[in-house]
């Protein structure tokens, strides 16, 4: 199937439509909540949460013996929440820094989860096959009810974010100050964190434990590059996330046997890469260009100012001088001289240069500006 075929089929084919909708919604909700995680400098929390969810999946399977995705996700939710609040507990009650706590809980829970998975695989229960799909996710297993669940959670999440927008924003920016205003910061914190856990758990089936945190961070990190407003950032992250879902699914469906989760994550990473390079205000490319341009401008201005100081000692400002004099001035290059000629500030005649009226005026204004500052 080619990409074109995919896009012609996506509205009619039930499976394709379900998977595409599912990954798009997942991308959107992850982008939305990821913005908060990134701005709280809790980028790694997502990684810890998704890994912490693994033992929950295994235990839920051990208890029920069935592979119903809702039951397994409930297990994931419980163990994800336990892991998260352990991390918070460790950070606030011990001397350990949050990165240590994150690493500790991540490996502890993930190790335990893997242990349970291998234990389950040794069991005679025929149902067990495919539980390891939760490691890297399998979008193909999405059914309509999964998508409905995602849609409901996303709607709820949107509602809560809109309702507590002001509280979320101030907590993200200045938690201490928020406390002095009389807000219970613990409640706001628990609310945000719980939704992040929920979004991650929703994504486990599609993207899997290992790559889930990228779904959270990549759209948000990309969005941050394009805007200086929190609301725009959240909306952009939503869009980037949804597009990653759609294009990731499209690419994986059109290239046989490409696993969907990793492709979605790669598409999201392309968004990040593109944003880091091409964002007009924060991107590497334009910042470098601005830097070079500023340097050039300054070089020209300095050269012009140097010429002005020489020229103003003469009655005739266009009195010619040798280019050699300019060598005394450190910032001088032939290139700058050529550019000044092109701008009609300077005229060249063999080895001699002279300021034009324009150049003199420009230089004297430059000088005044410097003096006024």
């Amino acid at each position: 199937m080619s990409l074109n075929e995919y896009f012609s089929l996506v509205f009619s084919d039930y499976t394709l439509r379900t998977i595409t909708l599912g990954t798009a919604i997942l991308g959107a909700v992850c982008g939305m909540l990821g913005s908060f995680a990134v701005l709280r400098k809790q980028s790694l929390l997502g990684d810890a949460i998704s890994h912490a969810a693994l033992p929950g999946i295994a235990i839920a399977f051990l208890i029920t013996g069935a592979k119903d995705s809702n039951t397994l996700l409930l297990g994931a939710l419980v163990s994800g929440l336990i892991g998260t609040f352990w991390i918070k507990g460790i950070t606030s009650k011990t001397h350990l820094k949050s990165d240590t706590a994150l690493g500790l809980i991540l490996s502890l829970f993930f190790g335990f989860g893997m242990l349970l998975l291998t234990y389950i695989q040794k069991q005679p229960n025929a149902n067990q096959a495919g539980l390891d799909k939760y490691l890297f996710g399998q979008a193909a297993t999405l059914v309509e009810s999964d998508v409905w669940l995602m849609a409901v959670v996303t709607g709820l999440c949107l509602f809560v974010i809109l309702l507590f927008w002001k509280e979320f924003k101030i907590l993200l920016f200045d938690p201490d100050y928020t406390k002095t205003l009389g807000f219970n910061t613990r409640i706001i914190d628990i609310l945000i964190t719980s939704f992040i856990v929920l979004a991650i758990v929703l994504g486990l089936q599609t993207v899997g434990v290992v790559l889930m945190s990228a779904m959270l961070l990549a759209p948000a990190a990309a969005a941050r590059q394009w805007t200086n407003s929190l609301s725009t950032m959240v909306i952009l992250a939503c869009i980037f996330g949804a597009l990653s879902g759609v294009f990731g699914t499209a690419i994986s469906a059109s290239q046989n046997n490409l696993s969907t989760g990793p492709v979605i994550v790669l598409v999201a990473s392309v968004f990040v890469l593109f944003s880091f390079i091409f964002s007009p205000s924060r991107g590497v490319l334009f910042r470098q260009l601005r830097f070079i341009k500023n340097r050039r401008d300054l070089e020209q201005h300095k050269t012009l100012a140097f010429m002005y100081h020489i020229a103003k000692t003469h009655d005739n400002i266009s009195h010619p001088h040798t280019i050699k004099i300019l060598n005394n001035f450190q910032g001088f290059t032939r290139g700058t001289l050529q550019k000044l000629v092109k701008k009609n500030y300077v005229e060249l005649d063999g080895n001699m240069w002279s300021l034009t009226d324009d150049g003199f005026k420009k230089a004297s204004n430059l000088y005044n500006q410097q003096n006024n500052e």
Partner: protein
Amino acid sequence: MAQNIAVKVDDLTVAYNYKPVLWDIDLEIPEGVLMAIVGPNGAGKSTLIKSILGILPPIAGSVTIYGKPYKKQRSLVAYVPQKGSVDWDFPTTALDVVMMGTYGSLGWIKRPRQKEKKAALEALEKVGMLAFKSRQISQLSGGQQQRIFLARALVQNASIYFMDEPFQGVDATTEIAIINILKELRKAGKTVIVVHHDLQTVPEYFDWVTFLNVKKIATGPVKDIFNDDNLTKTYGINYKVSIQE
């Protein structure tokens, strides 16, 4: 001098680990003073403010604002945190940060409206930052960021202001602008408490001072207690400050 007591601290003790950061602090701050809290690094100056404001839980002790527990009097108190305590790359504008000062009176869920915006703009004007209202906060200088923080507290229209090193890392122009605003607040009958580092400016800026080094060394009017004796007791070395008139 029959003054109201704005802030009363009793037996306040705070510890992060085993070693107390503040030990048995008793403090009465009269209404309408402009007070500096001075002391060496690690003396617990910021901690004192933070535990008065309930940001840090004390081990023991109590704080009352005009005779009632702080929790019931929050609306009377405004806080200016240290500038370095937040991430200035946060995606928001100067006006938006100042608007946050209105969130407390709004309470949960309610959104700021025209009235709140107007108050925020007025506060921006007071600190001379109206022209920068739409500026992304990372593009403000350190002094401008400090003024934004000050404006955010002004918007709260409180009776008591706690400020954590508002002069840190600002240029001379901003320092003068800020101290003028603080003096105006005092003139309006407000109480202003400032963690301060520059001993040279204490007599010029403040009328009340508290010496702190884990324990309270002294508190009172600058003209009575700002002397070499208390400075030496607080800083532990033979400190001599020439007090300029």
